[in-house]
C-alpha cells in the first residue's frame, strides 16, 4: 500500500500543488506537481520530517510587561508543537530579561532551547 499526500508548496508565491507518494516504509517513491527543484526538496522533507519554529509568550515576574515573547531557537518536529506549547505555558521568566535568554533548556528533550525574543525591564 502506498500513501499519497497532497500539499501546497510554500517556497514561492506560485504555490504549486504537489502530490507525494510514499511506500509502506515511508520512503518517498514519487513527487509530482512541483515546477522547480526547491519544490521537490520541500515536498520530500515536508512528508518525511516536517518541522516548524514555535513562537509564543511566557509570563514575566516583576517586569514592566505581563508577558514577553519567546521562540524555539531552531525547528522542532511539527507533531510536537502542542507538547512544546504545554512546556512554554508552564514556564516563566524573571525580569529583567534580554533577547536570547534561555527560558527552557532542551524543550521536551527535542534538543532545542526556548529563548526570549523581546527584552523586558524590571518594573
Amino acid at each position: 500500500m502506498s500513501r499519497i499526500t497532497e500539499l501546497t508548496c510554500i517556497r514561492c508565491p506560485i504555490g504549486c500543488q504537489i502530490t507525494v507518494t510514499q511506500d509502506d516504509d515511508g520512503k518517498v517513491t514519487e513527487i509530482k506537481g512541483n515546477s522547480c527543484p526547491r519544490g521537490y526538496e520541500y515536498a520530500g522533507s515536508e512528508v518525511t520530517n516536517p518541522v516548524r519554529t514555535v513562537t509564543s509568550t511566557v509570563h514575566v515576574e516583576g517586569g514592566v510587561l505581563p508577558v514577553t515573547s519567546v521562540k524555539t531557537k531552531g525547528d522542532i518536529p511539527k507533531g510536537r508543537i502542542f507538547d512544546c506549547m504545554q512546556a512554554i505555558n508552564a514556564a516563566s521568566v524573571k525580569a529583567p530579561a534580554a533577547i536570547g535568554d534561555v527560558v527552557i533548556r532542551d524543550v521536551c528533550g527535542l534538543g532545542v532551547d526556548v529563548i526570549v525574543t523581546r527584552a523586558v525591564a524590571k518594573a
Partner: protein
Amino acid sequence: MNADKKAKIVIIGGGPAGLSAAAAANEAGAAAGDILILERDNVLGGILNQCIHNGFGLHTFKEELTGPEYAARFVSTVQERGIPYLLNTIVVDISVDGDGSKVVSAMNRTDGFFTVRADAVILAMGCRERPRGALNIPGYRPAGIYTAGTAQRFVNIEGRMPGHEVVILGSGDIGLIMARRMTLEGAKVKVVAELMPYSGGLKRNIVQCLDDFGIPLKLSHTVTDIRGRERVEAVTIAEVGPDRKPVPGTEETYTCDTLLLSCGLIPENELSSQLGVELSRVTSGPVVNESLETSVPGVFACGNVLHVHDLVDYVSEEAANAGRNAAGYVEGNGSEGKPEEDGTPVQVIAKDGVRYTVPSSIRIGRMNDLQLIRFRVGAVYRDASIAIDFNDTVVRTQKKRILAPGEMEQVILKKEDLQKFEGLKTITIRVDTSEAKKQ
C-alpha cells in the same frame, strides 16, 4: 511663529519605517542631534512588538527573526547613534510656515503641548485595520468582535485571550497568524471566511497557520449574521456569487464567542491630508515622486503610511531611501534647489491590472542610477507578463508565473534608459494578459 523645539528632520512614527529612516538619514550625513522621532506608544518598534511570529528579516539580515527581534536591531542602532526620540507623544498637526519650514504640533504628559520647527518631515505613521464599522456586517453589536490586530495585542502583549471559539472574517496575514496563535493557546478556530475568490495572505501563512491545524479556509464566503446580545454567540457565513452578494440557501451557522476581522489595512493619513498632501485614491497614501517626497516639498513618506507592504524588509528598505533623501533635502539638494536641472517629471502610470505604482512620478535629474517601482495587481494572474511602456513604445516585458494581490511586485528602471529615450513623458506599468489566464 515661534516654535518650542528645533530639528532638521522630524520623523512621525517610531515603527520599522521611522527607525530605518532615522538611521539612514544619519548615515547620509544628518547629525543625530538634528533628527527627532516622535512616537505615540510607550516604546519604539511599532507593530513589530506584537508580531511575535518569525519570518522577518530574511532580506535585511539574511536570517529569520521574530518581529520584536527585528525591531530591537533597529532600536539599538537608533540608540547607539544617539538619535533623539520622544515616546508617549502624539502629533496633532503639521503645517508649512511662510519660509517653507514645517511646524509639527505635538503633545505628551511631560512637555504638554509643544511645537517643533523642522526643515523636513518624514511621515512614517503606518496603517490601521479596517474596522467593523467599515464592513457593513449585519447583525447585533455584542462584545467579542475584534480586529485581528487587537486580538494580537491582547494575546501577545497583555497576555489575555479574547475568546475560546473563534470565527475569522478575512484572510489577511494578521488573521491567518492569529488563527494559529489562538489555536496554540487552546482556542478552537472554526473557520476563516474570505469574501474574495483568493486569499490576500501569503501562501506560507495559509499552509503553516491554517493547513497545519486543519482550519478550513472558505473562499468566496462572507459573514451574513452575528448573533448574541451581550456576547457573540454564533456567526452565520454564506457563499457569495460573482457579484460578491450572499447566495441564499448557502448559510452555515457556527457557534462561537469571538469574531476576528482581518479585512485589510488602511494607511493612516489624517495628518497628511490636514497638511494638504495629495493622497492616492487607490492606496489612501501620499502621491510621491522618485525621492518618496510628497506634493508638499520637504515632506517625505515611507512604510505602510505610503502603501501597505507585504514584508517589513521592504518597509525598511523604502524608509532608508526616504531618510537619505530627507538628509539630502536639508543639506540643500532639495526640490527647491535647481528645478530646471530636473526637467519635467515623467509620470508613472498604472494600467491594465496594475492598481498603483510607488513612485508615481520621476524627475530624471534626481533619480538614482536604478529606480525601484513597487506596485500591486488587482487580481490573480497566471503566466502573464508585466509590460513597461515608454510613452507608447513597449520597452520591456517580464514574464510572471504568478501575480497575486497579496504580494507586492517590483520593476527596476535604469536612469540611462530614461535619459536615452527622446521626449519621455510617461512610463506605463501594466499586466499583459495576451497569453495569460486570469483566475
